[in-house]
């Protein structure tokens, strides 16, 4: 049976500083600090369909927002062509990624779908933050324009997707069509 690692903390015991450290180490061990720090390894979920559904909904949400901006919802009357190209590319890749995540023909393709989804998410956050901080060519009016709810929401969705993907990669979650091998 696998047990929680209970590491002995070796401390120098010479002098009062040593005794103080030993007391701290003893308290930490008693309080279970080592177990606490590694707590994320104790958490595992077996809800592959829920995980993939949430991932797809979030990813399509990111795509839908860019689509909305593409077809006239952008908060400025005009924007440069490259931005439109970027929005279109993001939507296409997001939809492709979502499709790969759910159709699940081969495990490698499913994993690629999730990776693409994270790429889309990170890119969207990076572009949004860049537009507000260092500025994008031809879009000076976006500088420091943080009070834009849809933009904040889009960033939150992107962060959520990356977190979800990380949870799958670290084994905390499984994504469809993976299954847990919990037979005991």
């Amino acid at each position, binding site marked *: *049976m696998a047990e929680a690692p209970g590491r002995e903390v070796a401390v120098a015991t010479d002098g009062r500083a040593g005794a103080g450290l030993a007391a701290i180490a003893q308290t930490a061990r008693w*309080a279970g*600090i080592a177990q*606490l720090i590694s707590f994320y390894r104790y958490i*595992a979920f077996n809800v592959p369909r829920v995980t993939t559904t949430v991932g797809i909904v979030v990813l399509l949400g990111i795509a839908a927002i860019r689509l909305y901006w593409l077809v006239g919802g952008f908060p400025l009357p005009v924007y440069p062509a490259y931005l439109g190209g970027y929005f279109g590319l993001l939507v296409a890749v997001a939809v492709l990624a979502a499709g790969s995540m759910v159709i699940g023909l081969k495990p490698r393709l499913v994993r690629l779908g999730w990776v693409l989804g994270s790429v889309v998410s990170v890119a969207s956050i990076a572009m949004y933050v860049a537009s507000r901080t260092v500025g994008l060519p031809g879009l000076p009016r976006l500088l420091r324009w943080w*009070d834009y*709810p849809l933009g904040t929401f889009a960033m939150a969705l992107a962060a959520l997707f990356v977190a979800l993907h990380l949870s799958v990669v670290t084994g905390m979650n499984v994504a469809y069509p993976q299954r847990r091998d*919990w*037979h*005991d």
Partner: protein
Amino acid sequence: MVVLDYPAWLRIEHWVNVLFLTLLIRSGIEIVATHPKLYRGNDSRPGTEWARFTRKTMPTDKLYDTLDEEESYSSLVSLPGHKNLGMGRHWHFVTVIGWILTGIAYYILLFATGQWHRYLPYSWSIFPETWNDILTYLSFKLPPLLPGEPLDAIQKLTYAGVIFLLAPFQILTGAAQSPAVEARFPWYVRLWGGRQSARSLHFLGLLAFLGFIAVHLTMVGLWGWPQLNALMIFGHVGHLGWALAASLAIVAAIVVVHIAATVWSLKSPRSVQRALGFVINHGRLVALRPMVSRQRYPQSALSPEHRVNGKPPDSDDYKVMAVHHFVDWTLHVGGLVEYPMTLTLADLRALGDKQTQRVLHNCVQGWSSVGEWGGVPFRNLVELVKPLPQARHICFLTMQDTGRDEPSAEGAGQFYEVLDMSLARHPQCLLAYEMNGAPLPIEHGAPLRLRIENQVGFKMAKWISQIEFISDYHAIGQGMGGWREDNVYYDKDVEV
């Protein structure tokens, strides 16, 4: 219109709630640690859990029980930590009593003083106002307070949800995990989708409370910690330096209570068991003892794999008896009775018509399974031996030697359990020699086990060899009314 200010009772309730809620959370996590797997429905079939909070894996070629699966969590997240379910249960239940009483007082005062308007909206416009608040927060700005109120719209709705929905939800899903409640009202378990669904929902409620606390603290920080604490401590904004100091002092006091509870539990569990058990038992016996089991689960509800707790007697005598179908096993019934006797398995089968019952089994660790038990109603045996008037309890002695047989249990000695006489005549109190239509399996207590369906599973002694009618149990073992009570500090009466 009532002025929505901060009367003294509201402020006191807030801080009392902080204490109770944090005690509930930490002790609740201790309870989860004892079976850190969450399921749906009524079953706890290994491998079907939707969440796991353990890294242990169990063998497939050896019998394991749920004591092996128990996890040990840090004292920082669980009360008291380090595999102390008995202590965790005591803190959880005594705090539940306090929290419910506080909640009832709060509801009464809210409605009596008109302060309920601070949570329940005056009009439907709260919803568009909430939407606007969401947009404002997403713009990294703070929305306006509602006119004449100390909250904005989304805060008002959130507090209403926590106070009138989430808190009762936790209490109701908690009640659905009491064997007495489930046994008396099987429809109540069905209402939540099953015993394990109720447990999972209760856990999700815990997550909701944790989420609420995180957002609440962030909001208080964003809106002004000293100002808001001044409101919640003094009742008005002012003396901000003192408000900050007072808030830190209160938090420190709550932390001190937590540390004290943890240290007391780890260092002197018997005194915690006695002190808290005294309070809890009175509430338990009044509210739950009257609930008599009347369960009749259908055949289709039977668990494909009924979980096991406790390992069978690891002695050659037992194994030889078992391979001979327990022909040589005898049950000694004695103590304060007119007619002590010794019975074989055949004698027990001859004691009237076999009674079968399909019931939900609740382990103290939180798993459950549905099984069909067949045997002789215990009241038949009681009528046969005729207990003397001074017999108030029944002691069930078993063939299990915990030190020898159960490496995952804390403690050693012969496993025994004590039952009150009042439970002996319950219609579904059974001495079971069959399970699911076949002779009782060894891992489930062959040849004879007790069933008392409004109690938690550990009371239902397995591998019984002797039944003694007694007037007082304090001289047996360590005097707490059972092996688990002696060694793991559970209560003797466990309708919850």
